[in-house]
């Protein structure tokens, strides 16, 4: 499916550019995007090293185990296939907390770490495990308490009340997350049956 979407985006982009006589736009866009990819990755390396360094400290101090134990009854409900002592639990909890607080750049390192841990428990290393799918569904639909970037944009646009959309954002993300959890649960139980 991803292969098809990727190809379709390229083909349709090139065709539209050709028909509208702006074929050179494809060249600039493609080269710029490739550069941007490196920039994003390099930035990510810095932030990621910082957070993974801290996480290692928290792990060796036993903090992650404590946090994982506190949240595990709730998290284990969502991830029945993960073992109680799995190191994935800590990373999942940290990722979701960072998402909820709107700390986007801290969420990614924990998220990628969680994926690595989940992959270690995955019996088929090429196929997404149910726990991974649940995790990504939670990750992308997670409740956001502070949409900091948007508040910044509204502030610059001279909004009378830049933070008034916090409530509506919490509601919308809450709905999305609830539906994601329920549908994921239904899919999983149907596949098992």
């Amino acid at each position, binding site marked *: 499916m*991803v292969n098809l979407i990727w190809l379709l*985006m390229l083909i*349709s*982009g*090139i065709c*539209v*550019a050709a028909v509208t006589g702006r074929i050179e736009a494809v060249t600039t866009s493609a080269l710029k*995007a*490739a550069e*941007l*990819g*490196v920039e994003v990755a*390099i930035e990510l*390396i*810095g*932030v*990621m*090293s*910082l957070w*993974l*360094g801290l996480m*290692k400290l*928290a*792990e060796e101090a*036993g*903090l992650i185990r404590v946090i994982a134990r506190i949240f595990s009854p709730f998290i284990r409900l969502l991830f029945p296939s993960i073992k109680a002592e799995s190191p994935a639990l800590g990373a999942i909890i940290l990722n979701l907390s960072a998402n909820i*607080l709107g700390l986007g750049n801290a969420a990614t390192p924990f*998220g*990628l770490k969680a*994926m*690595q841990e989940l992959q270690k428990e995955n019996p088929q290393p*090429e196929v*997404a495990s149910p726990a*991974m*799918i649940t995790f*990504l*569904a939670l*990750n*992308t*639909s997670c409740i956001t308490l*502070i*949409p900091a*970037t*948007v508040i910044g*944009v*509204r502030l610059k646009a001279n*909004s*009378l009340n830049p933070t*008034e959309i916090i*409530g*509506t*954002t919490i509601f*919308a993300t809450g*709905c*999305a*997350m609830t*539906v*994601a959890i329920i*549908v*994921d649960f239904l899919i999983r139980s149907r596949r098992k049956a």
Partner: protein
Amino acid sequence: MKVIAEISRWAIPMLLLIIPLMAYLRKVPVYEAFVTGAEEGFKTGVRILPFLIGMLVAIKVFVDSGALEIVVRLLLPLFTRFGLDPDLTAIIPLAVMRPLSGSGALGVATQLINQYGPDSFIGRLASTLQGSTDTTFFVLTVYFGSVGISKYRYALKLGLLADFVGLVASVWIVSRVF
């Protein structure tokens, strides 16, 4: 709301203080442990690089060429047929862009907020939508790519369903509250 904003302002400095301190008290060699963990950041960054580039190139060609605009224009009659307010159509480019590209969606949202005014219906809706859905397609490809998974099974459908629910919920709540 103030309390939440304060928490997010203090969260990172407090973590930077408390975690190393606790580790030190538990006799962890703090600096060495930090460096060991940080090393993984580099490896992960290098591993996701090809996936980032692959996705960004396809998405940028798709958007910059005007292909996205055509998709949006094709979707328009569909929306109006379902009895949706024609005012709402201004939000469609953002709704289509959001799962694909974070920076792209932020650009569209910023433009909508400035064009219609941050305190207009469209401005509030664009703000809510930008804050409440994620770049699902992008996150999935990079996260799965980083561990070498090529079969996503139902992950993409589930993520996009959640985005769609977020869109409908945003429209509903913004038209009710304001």
